[in-house]
């Protein structure tokens, strides 16, 4: 993006001398093994009932030629993140070098403004009891594995992805794999109309997969029962 077209001073994509990490998810390669979800859970001891990354699917096609269209999801580490703007105490912030959107747990007051602001449901409230860590009752989210990336490792979900569906790198570096993939493939981001400038790019996902489904008009009764059971179980 040229300097003339830049609207928000917080954006770091295309800024010379700054890194801007991004993830490309090639949905054609995703087999729905959920290994990314498990790797993330193992990396962060994410509690039951909440996820930093998750893999929903839709069944598409017409019988007998049907298939599952997976859409791995995570925080989009937006260039113009509404959660950062909405946090009253700057507990949520953007790391300028890399574009990570991170959370200061010790400062979060738990007002859930960031959760309401996020168009991607990427944020969640941690429960009040956890076994291995004192971090409780604050909002949590995917960090793009900041601690791994700063050690020149890729995020845990990328490391474990057996189909190489997830690719991670610096999109400001013209020689990176993510730059190449975004430049040479038609890509889609989630809810571009929100103006958040997300940095998770999908290859092979179309609007039918990324927009609210028609099923939302008539949610199956069984789904509502499961939702109620889930809420009862986790007291939410």
């Amino acid at each position, binding site marked *: 993006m040229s300097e003339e077209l830049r609207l928000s001073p917080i954006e770091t994509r295309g800024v010379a001398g700054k890194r801007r990490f991004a993830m490309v998810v090639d949905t054609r390669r995703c087999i729905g093994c959920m290994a990314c979800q498990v790797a993330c859970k193992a990396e962060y001891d994410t509690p039951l009932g909440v996820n930093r990354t998750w893999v929903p699917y*839709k069944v598409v096609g017409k019988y007998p030629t049907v298939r599952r269209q997976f859409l791995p999801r995570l925080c989009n580490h937006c260039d113009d993140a509404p959660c950062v703007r909405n*946090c*009253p105490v700057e507990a949520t912030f953007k790391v300028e070098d890399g574009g990570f959107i991170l959370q200061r747990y010790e*400062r979060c007051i*738990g007002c859930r403004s960031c959760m309401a602001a996020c*168009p991607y*449901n990427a944020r969640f409230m941690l429960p009040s009891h956890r076994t291995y860590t004192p971090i409780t009752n604050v909002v949590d989210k995917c960090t793009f594995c900041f601690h791994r990336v700063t050690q020149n490792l890729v995020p845990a979900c990328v490391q474990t992805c057996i189909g190489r569906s997830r690719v991670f790198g610096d999109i400001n570096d013209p020689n990176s794999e993510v730059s190449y993939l975004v430049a040479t493939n038609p890509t889609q981001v989630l809810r571009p109309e929100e103006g958040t400038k997300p940095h998770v790019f999908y290859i092979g996902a179309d609007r039918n997969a990324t927009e609210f489904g028609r099923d*939302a008009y008539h949610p*199956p009764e069984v789904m509502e029962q499961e*939702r109620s059971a889930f809420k009862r179980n986790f007291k939410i």
Partner: protein
Amino acid sequence: MGEYVWFHDVSWHASYAIYFFVIGILAGLSFMSYGSWITPALRPLREKAAYGSLALMAVGGLLLIADLSQPLRFLNVLNPAYLSFTSPLAWGSLNIAAFGVASVLYIMALRKGDEVRGKQLAFVTALLALGLPIYTGYDLSVHQSRPMWNTPIMPVLFVALATASGSAVGSLMAGANEATQRVLREYMLWSTGAVGVILVSILGTTNYGGAASELTFVIMTTGTMGLIFIGFGLLAGTAAPVALLLVAHWREQQSGLMLASVLILVGSAALRYALLMGPQQLQTLY
């Protein structure tokens, strides 16, 4: 059929709607107390409204703090080193704190019988009270990804709701005082009418929006949420009181006025609940 979605929880729960309701009434009462310096008919409400407003501020403040998952960290919002002015919540917390201080000073002036300072502080208190429904509405409207919330008219709606519910409580406090009731009837009629017009326009534009707006319209107008929003909020809490207030005007009926006040309070509580919870439902499916 054939979709797997992860279950997400709504961000803000019903306790936040109670806070909206309480803060609306306290703002409205503060308007009434200031109004008593301008309109002599409202004089009997001056002290009652000021005390009521301060008491509700204490309740509302506690509700807001209790709603945080880290209640003891509420002081972070008042810490200048942490404060982020891009967040409406930051402005809101400063507004509430300033309103509390101004309210206490105003009541002290009332107790001393200091007319000059009392009028000045009543003005300051009412001005800060105006900021409360504006910030609560703004708190919703900044969430541009949420249909119904993402309209700039939301703060105006909350000011109208505050005036309507504050006047309704004032009317219940005023009892059989005819001169006061006549003024409050006008306030209730016009503010409730404004609420109705704004709600219809919000509903209309929501229905003509994109997929998310269209689905939110369906959620808001059908099922339990439809009963709360359309049934209790729009019909019983807005249309019925307007009709009753018009009839009461023609026939000078005291009972009609009382019933209208109660309906306005029921309606404004239902509307705040539906406006808060309804637009969050769809997001849980994404």
